[in-house]
């Protein structure tokens, strides 16, 4: 677990767009994709082309993107089941009785889910966690939530490493965790991990207090985005909104 999340550390125009712009752009893009009628196939190919272009501009290796698409797998399974469980009139494909709405639903989930995941990968691979938090702060996320998020991101690798060390220690004692009898050992370790994390949290807070923390964290972000940056970052999203509106009009 690296503290950098999924960041691919290269320099590209996409990396340089301020995080708050990217967050808004991602949100608008995904919302446009989600509200596009599933049967307007050309709209989805346009979205895909724009996303691929953005991935190329961001200099992300195709292997990285495709590997991270794996998070989608459970829903691909769900989507592939849809044609068999959904009701409605049937179509016959290769001797299989499939529900029409199910087939369309499967396509709907697959297309929108995949586009959404690629867009999210684009964000997470081009934005460092710290910038992301600064962006959320600029977008007026409540300060307490930003503080909690920043502590989580900061201590994620510490807690993960704690867990990893405890796993190494446990497995070297023979508790590899394969059998039910090992549950107590695994769960005991996790219980200790909670106590350690809790106590670390208390220590960190006391250390902050002794250094003058009064309940307000210093701002993470330094400056806002310029109008040009907003326009540059939102270009794809605005195009997506136009496509979504066009698709709606066509489908009426």
């Amino acid at each position, binding site marked *: 677990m690296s503290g950098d999340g999924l960041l691919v550390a290269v320099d590209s125009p996409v990396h340089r767009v301020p995080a708050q712009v990217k967050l808004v752009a991602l949100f608008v893009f995904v919302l446009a994709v989600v509200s596009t009628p599933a049967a307007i196939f050309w709209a989805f190919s346009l979205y895909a082309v724009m996303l691929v272009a953005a991935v190329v501009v961001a200099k992300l290796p195709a292997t990285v993107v495709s590997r991270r698409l794996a998070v989608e797998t459970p829903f691909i399974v769900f989507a592939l089941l849809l044609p068999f469980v959904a009701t409605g009139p049937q179509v016959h494909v290769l001797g299989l009785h499939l529900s029409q709405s199910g087939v369309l639903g499967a396509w709907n989930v697959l297309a929108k889910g995949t586009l959404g995941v690629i867009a999210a990968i684009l964000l997470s691979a081009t934005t460092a966690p710290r910038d992301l938090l600064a962006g959320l702060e600029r977008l007026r996320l409540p300060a307490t939530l930003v503080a909690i*998020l920043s502590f989580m991101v*900061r201590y994620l690798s510490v807690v993960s490493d704690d867990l990893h060390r405890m796993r190494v220690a446990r497995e070297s004692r023979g508790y590899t965790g394969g059998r039910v009898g090992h549950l107590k050992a695994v769960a005991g370790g996790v219980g200790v991990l909670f106590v350690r*994390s809790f106590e670390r949290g208390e220590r960190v807070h006391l250390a902050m207090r002794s250094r003058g923390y009064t309940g307000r964290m210093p701002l993470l972000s330094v400056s806002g985005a310029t109008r040009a940056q907003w326009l540059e970052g939102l270009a794809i999203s605005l195009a997506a909104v136009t496509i979504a509106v066009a698709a709606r009009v066509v489908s009426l």
Partner: protein
Amino acid sequence: MLRFGRNKNNNERVHVPDGFFNAPTSVATGLIAAGAVGFSLQRANRELRETGPALAGLTAAFVFAVQMVNFPVGAGTSGHLLGGALAAALVGPWTAVLVMSTVLLVQGLLFADGGLTALGTNITLMGLITVLVGYFLTRALMKVLPRRVGSVVPAATVGALVSVPVAALAFAGLYSIGGAVDIPLGKLATAMVGWHVLVGIGEAVITAAVLSAVVATRPDLVYAARHLQQDLVLVDADGNTSTVSPDRPIAAKPAGRSLGVGVAVTLFVAGGLSLFASAHPDGLEFVGAKLGFEGAAKDSAVAGSPLADYGVHGIGNAQVSGALAGIIGVLVTIVVGLAIAKLASLRTNKAS
């Protein structure tokens, strides 16, 4: 994430992706989630001022890390923890809602796990429903069980067991109003709940094991059992004994009238979603399906793209149900918000 990933392929931690629910449903659940997070921020404010955001952040990091641990839960299978009920028992419901939301936010933004528009749905299902159902069930059961700190383990076990199928039921309810495909609600609910009872058993076993480990070492850290702490008995050099009540600055209030309200709210959230799912105009959908499908079915024999005609109609249909979902979602938010506010004021009165 990959360091623990020896068995990463059987990680059942499933997040709803983008496009699974239509836009109005996503917006409605987004509003519910935002309201819940805002309310929790307010409720947890006192605790957060006292313990600092660091503690909540570290708890979130803990939940994130633990979700990747493979627990052997029997029959040769391993389970993963969702952690809602466990977090609620350990740090209290409001902080737990914040912690779970933080975890989901980080997974969605930093690890591209779960869609951004589905974030509201994910927070509502996994951050809100599991936490509230788990916590209030735990507290209700602790009222019945012997007044010992150890009672929190069986209570939270049942809380965890129930919280997962309830979240699955809520998912089925949401899907029947905001999913694009008309799967019969009964079929979907049965499948979802059936499968998630199994997941819930795993969740319960893991929650019980982890919680009993914490109770054995630091019982004072278990939020749900703080009011059951024994008084400290001090014996000085002369043999005089005196009792001191333990330091419990943010102790949970003893179970009282508020609990009934809490359980009612929880059940409402749980059951309400599936109830108003059945308020979904099946008749309208039926008629729409009749009209739309017949035409499409004929076309499909001829047209190369059998779905083209149907899709148009299906979307019109989805819009109607989506709008309904939006309206009902907001209404539910208001009602739940009022109910929780009522509960909150009851608790505050007790505190003062």
